[in-house]
């Protein structure tokens, strides 16, 4: 699909330019991961990881895919990237960006419609 939103285009470019952001996204491409798992895999410091994950969620490059109940009864958000590959072309005054979605959109819509998604809300969470 062609990315049309200017804000999302800028966010993708920033995400790819920043090695820590890229490592965080790499960690959550194929599987939904908790913040701790992302920190372990990306080897980014705790405070930076929390700040950057929050930014990625705000820019809608990461979503809360599931909410897990941990052994001690606490809720833990599992994050996943919304996009998995990009094709970027720049010509004078024109940035064309193609991206491949990382989930089945119709399935997500239907899960939200029937309240079958794990977090039960169709909205992207902005808090981690």
């Amino acid at each position, binding site marked *: *699909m*062609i*990315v*049309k*939103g200017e*804000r*999302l285009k800028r966010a993708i470019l920033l995400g790819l330019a920043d090695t820590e952001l890229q490592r965080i996204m790499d960690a959550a491409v194929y599987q939904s991961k908790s913040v701790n798992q992302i920190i372990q895999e990306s080897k980014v410091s705790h405070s930076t990881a929390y700040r950057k994950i929050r930014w990625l969620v705000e820019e*809608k490059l990461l979503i809360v895919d599931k909410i897990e109940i941990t052994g001690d009864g606490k809720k833990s958000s599992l994050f996943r990237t*919304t*996009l998995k590959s990009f094709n970027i072309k720049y010509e004078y005054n024109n940035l064309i960006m193609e*991206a491949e*979605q990382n989930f*089945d*959109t*119709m*399935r*997500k*819509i*239907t*899960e*939200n*419609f*029937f*309240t*079958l998604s*794990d977090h*039960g809300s*169709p*909205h*992207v969470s902005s808090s981690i």
Partner: protein
Amino acid sequence: MLDTQLHLVNGIVILLAAGIPLYLTIRLKNDLRRLTAILSIFILIHAAYCWLDYFGFDFLSDGVFEPLSAAALLFFGISYYGIAKRKDNIKKMVAIWTPITFIPLMDSFTVILLLAALSIFLWLATRAKKIRSFQFQISIFIIIWVLGQVAGSLQDDGIIALSPLQGDIGLEIHVVSLVFFSIMVWLRFYYSHRSLIWLNTS
């Protein structure tokens, strides 16, 4: 005359609601397709009931298609429970008290089917604990539908006496239930869709 108009409104409103699950059934290519297909079948059977009523085929509408649509709704409830169980890891379903206040209604097969479907959705709604959940909202729809059935039966038996101007109270409540259902389906789809279209629009 009012009754005919209400049947017409019912027929139109329920067909409007059919659009969303039919669209999802066509577009989906996974296990959820079965669920949307069953919901579509329920709506189409109910639409057939409304239109047959409108054209005056009372036996076919009230005797065949109405209980059939209630049975389809019950089947949808069972299928929904199956999928919710997989998603939510529900261990077992506990028995739910079903309010059977009006003994004469036991004769009504439709009401029994509706109450069975209602028990499933109410139970799932109590687990979801959210007013915005599908389970809760469809429970409201079934409750209004059942209230319409009850009011209609009581009016037919002469227990409720209304002036002729007020017409068929059961049918009027049924219109309310279908309008509620149709609005619910469209709003739910709108909000579910809106949350995932930002990729192209923001």
